[in-house]
């Protein structure tokens, strides 16, 4: 057999609710109860409002750099909806919708971007890790988190989010490989939003799909329309089922688009066409759900306006809570470095000095030192 085939495969793409409103009943029916869909839509409106206000806070100097989430809400939200409270959400920084759905107090995210570590102090029952700034590194933590649950024979799994750019990092590969070979129940959720700051996806992955990254590990994989919350929910549910029952990982590539700049420090007009953006604006996940809800008489202009007002009120309260927090004090930077503080840190903390002459002499045996 000089030439034989040793591996064959196909990758599927899943979409249920298309941009034009077409809905696939066979896959979509009973996937999301009506009332839940309304709640999800309302939640998206809140998240969108959060985004608008966060952007303004940055522009008016009340907050540091902020990455808009606009246009990508369906991905993390669909996933959070499909998962259980005891499952870990291990996110990057564009998954507000999923984190808020899980129950993360919204001001935590503002605090983070306001340069305040208290934004990362998260109730352990939420099973959330803080925003990940270094790209591509949190997937390994997600694998470890799920592994620990498996070790204790708990049925929880982890779901980790990352961008197309993140799939270029070595840690992405190592995380995928650990999960596949050690049978760790982690869902790898890639939000392929077309860009990594100014770099288009083809420089990160010139293959026809990002989904095929998973073939390297023999891992289950699928591509979904990430602006279609139905498709996202179905893909994550299927992956979660496999994870829970077979302790196996899955990969999901959700195609979506970053409608805003990379962050408030970025100006996307420098590197991408307005045409591309307006094309994608029409595919906004919220337009689609609203159309679907209205067609089924579950939503209307009135409800929209009411909800918008509600969202505005809610977010202004969130901003208030974030801004009213007492200032951190300098000691905070010392106090959680270790479970117990070394003499060196105690001296630095109490004197706020590193120069030896400035440090409290009682903390080091300088007592019998006579001055020259």
């Amino acid at each position, binding site marked *: 057999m000089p030439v034989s085939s040793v591996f064959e495969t196909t990758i599927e793409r899943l979409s249920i609710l298309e941009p034009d409103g077409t809905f696939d009943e066979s896959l979509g029916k009973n996937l999301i109860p009506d009332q839940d869909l309304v709640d999800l839509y309302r939640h998206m409106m809140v998240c969108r409002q959060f985004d608008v206000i966060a952007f303004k806070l940055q522009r008016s100097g009340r907050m540091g750099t902020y990455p808009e989430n606009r246009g990508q809400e369906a991905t993390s939200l669909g996933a959070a909806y499909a998962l259980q409270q005891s499952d870990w959400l291990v996110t990057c920084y564009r998954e507000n919708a999923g984190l808020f759905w899980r129950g993360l107090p919204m001001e935590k995210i503002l605090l983070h971007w306001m340069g305040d570590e208290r934004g990362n102090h998260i109730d352990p029952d939420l099973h959330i890790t803080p925003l990940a700034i270094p790209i591509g590194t949190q997937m390994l933590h997600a694998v470890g988190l799920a592994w620990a649950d498996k070790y204790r024979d708990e049925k929880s799994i982890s779901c980790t989010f990352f961008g197309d750019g993140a799939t270029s990092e070595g840690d992405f590969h190592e995380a995928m490989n650990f999960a596949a070979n050690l049978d760790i129940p982690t869902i790898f959720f890639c939000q392929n939003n077309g860009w990594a700051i100014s770099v288009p996806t083809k420089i990160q992955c010139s293959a026809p799909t990002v989904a095929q990254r998973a073939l390297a590990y023999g891992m289950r994989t699928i591509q979904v329309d990430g602006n279609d919350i139905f498709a996202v929910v179905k893909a994550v549910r299927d992956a979660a089922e496999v994870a829970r029952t077979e302790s196996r990982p899955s990969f999901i590539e959700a195609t979506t688009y970053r409608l805003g700049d990379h962050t408030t420090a970025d100006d996307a007009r420098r590197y991408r066409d307005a045409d591309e953006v307006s094309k994608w604006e029409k595919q906004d996940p919220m337009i689609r759900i609203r159309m679907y809800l209205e067609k089924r008489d579950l939503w209307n202009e009135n409800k929209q306006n009411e909800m918008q007002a509600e969202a505005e009120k809610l977010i202004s309260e969130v901003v208030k809570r974030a801004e009213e927090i007492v200032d951190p004090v300098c000691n905070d930077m010392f106090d959680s470095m270790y479970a117990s503080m070394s003499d060196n840190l105690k001296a630095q903390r109490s004197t706020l000095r590193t120069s030896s002459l*400035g440090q409290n002499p009682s903390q080091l045996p300088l007592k019998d030192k006579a001055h020259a």
Partner: protein
Amino acid sequence: MANLTLVQAINLALIQEMEKDERVLILGEDVGPNGGVFRVTEGLHKRFGGKRVVDSPLAESGIIGTSVGLAMNGLRPVPEIQFEGFLGPAYDQLCTHAARMRTRTRGSLTVPMTVRVPVGGGIHAPELHSDSPEAIYTHTPGLKVVMPSSPYDAKGLLISAIRDPDPVIFFEPKRIYRAFREEVPEDEYTVPIGKARIVREGGEMTMVSWGASVIHCMNAIESSGRDIELIDLRTISPMDVETVVNSVNKTGRAIIVHEAPLTCGIGSELSARIMEHCFLQLESPVQRVAGFDVIMPYYKLELDYLPDTERIGKAIEETAAY
């Protein structure tokens, strides 16, 4: 002469070296059409094309590892790492390969590359965008480490770095990227790697610093009204111990100022060297005004972390009074 910011001076140096030497190419995240997140490579993609100014995949080890190969094969890559906090994934390629290649091959393969990296705090940036890891790379033999504190030095040092036959980590203090302008010659010139600069002379004590902290030292000295000699190290590895030791032998007192954490920072090496070589001249213990031994805090507390004029001022008074 042109009145340039530090960013502009670096941009000019890159243009001039690329014009002059075909072997020079730039690679990194967003360095292409976007001109880099700090706009340091602005205009270069347009001017030199995508072959010489390359947007790479988002992978720091890949950027440095391929640069090692490019350099081994006759080119002069100038990779950019977007922030010093993302040097971590490239640590292995820098310290295990770039730094070792010349000596492990007894000179048959070399790595003439210049790794540009914005460094340091003070710009209200997110987590991992404000660190100062220069000591890590100074402890690694085989690398050179440079950090300018002015547009003039930035241009001259960067040109020296690109022409250097060995790997150089070129740290750019982001806090002063645009903080002030300085007269910078249009023509190419070099500032030698390995030579400190005496910023101002003085007889009462010696202060040593580098990068953005030099400005704070200057302010503190001026408000102290004392006759203090200020040395800008400029090159951290190899260290110009001679200039420092000569100064301390004259003044008898020394203060070192840096942003990185105190313990095992560059201050410790300088302090040890000063003590070793100026032992009998020293009239007070060498003082270190540095970052605390904590993780660089998020920006609400960053100014509490960074050595400032006040902390430097106190160290001056205490050292003088000793």
